């Protein structure tokens, strides 16, 4: 099938976008189009107006001031994967970016689009929750910051109002704790069957944020004693799981264990595929 008819508008400012969304409540923003265009091609989405935000230069930036990483909404997944400063200061984001889809998808798909789409199996929503980022949202009253922990409401659902858009995300530096990542997918580039970010606070406690296992990412405090099975199980009980079958629970636990192991690696080993890969 082919997309239904729409009116195409090219925005150069965020204010334009907000106004146009107000005027056309069934209008849609297009960023990378890597989630929206498949839906339009199958007519699962039929916006009356398509607002192209790719020309808004102000949304295309990466800045690190020593304490906060400021990412524009239009940064592509591959740009995050390739960014030398992110690799140095936020290596977990580098590793996560490399797991998003395929090269051609990463070249066009954007951070803001992924956060707005809120696929529960996506890497970025979980990364933002795990790293306690804030998401910058602009509507008619101006920009407000929403903690990532409050941004995602459930499957493909966020707090965004119809006339609001994401302009960026702000990720605080991680301090003394160590963060690891793990994911398992059927094939390279597929959406995760299960994935996790695990933060080790190095005092026997930490946090786990899964993706692909529940309706939305949540950062959950866990005890990290040498035998941790019970900790992971208690954490999973706090989530609305997609599937409560024991093999799915076991997979989520295995992935959390891998992410914890990964957090202890340094240097080149941290980026090694075998350190992160699950059973794929």
């Amino acid at each position, binding site marked *: 099938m082919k997309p239904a008819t729409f009116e195409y508008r090219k925005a150069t400012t965020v204010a334009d976008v907000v106004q146009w969304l107000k005027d056309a409540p069934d209008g849609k923003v297009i960023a990378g189009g890597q989630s929206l265009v498949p839906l339009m091609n199958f007519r699962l989405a039929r916006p009356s107006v398509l607002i192209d935000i790719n020309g808004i230069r102000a949304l295309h930036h990466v800045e690190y001031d020593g304490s906060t990483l400021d990412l524009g909404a239009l940064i592509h997944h591959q740009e995050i994967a390739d960014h030398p400063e992110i690799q140095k200061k936020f290596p977990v984001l580098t590793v996560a970016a490399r797991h998003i889809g395929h090269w051609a998808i990463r070249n066009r798909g954007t951070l803001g689009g992924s956060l707005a789409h809120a696929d529960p199996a996506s890497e970025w929503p979980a990364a933002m929750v795990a790293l306690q980022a804030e998401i910058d949202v602009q509507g008619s009253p101006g920009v407000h910051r929403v903690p990532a922990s409050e941004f995602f409401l459930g499957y493909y659902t966020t707090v965004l109002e119809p006339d609001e858009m994401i302009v960026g995300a702000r990720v605080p530096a991680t301090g003394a704790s160590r963060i690891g990542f793990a994911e398992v997918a059927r094939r*390279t580039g597929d959406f995760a069957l299960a994935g996790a970010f695990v933060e080790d606070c190095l005092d026997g406690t930490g946090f786990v944020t899964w993706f692909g296992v529940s309706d939305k990412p949540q950062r959950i405090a866990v005890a990290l004693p040498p035998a941790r099975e019970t900790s992971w199980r208690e954490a999973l009980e706090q989530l609305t799981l997609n599937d409560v079958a024991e093999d799915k629970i076991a997979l989520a636990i295995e992935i959390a264990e891998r992410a914890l192991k990964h957090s202890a690696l340094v240097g080149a080993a941290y980026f090694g595929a075998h350190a992160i890969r699950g059973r794929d």
Partner: protein
Amino acid sequence: MSTKMPVNLTINGETFNVEVEPRWLLSDVIRHQVGLIGTHVGCEQGVCGACTVLIDGKPERSCLIFAVQAQGHQITTVEGLTQNKPDLTPLQQAFQNHHALQCGYCTPGMLLTATALLETEPHPNEHRIREALSGNVCRCTGYQFIVDAILEVAGDSKEASR
């Protein structure tokens, strides 16, 4: 609403002035308006990679971008690899030598993805090649011959070391 808009597309270094509906995918415009049918279309959901073209040198899915969005960018299709050249590129020649294609449906996407890979990284190892090609599905070859062909051009030929 379905009124057409004039668009200038730069494809393989040439400019094409076409009238398009905003809803027309770049893949369809390349094939039907411009007439370059080397770009294949499989799934129209970004999964198969048959429609992969280079946009400003980077592989992207032409089925997931509207033609109106491609104005002002350099598009390369498989035809562009041999534009104004009498011979196949070394990569195309290696595909032929290694029997890296059977039906040929995936081949344009494979060639463009591999061309971009070799441009950014002239000597990728097998793992890197397989990772870069993970978004291009081939139902015929089993991939090994494709990987062998790219390895040959990468100067890391298994054949050579055998």
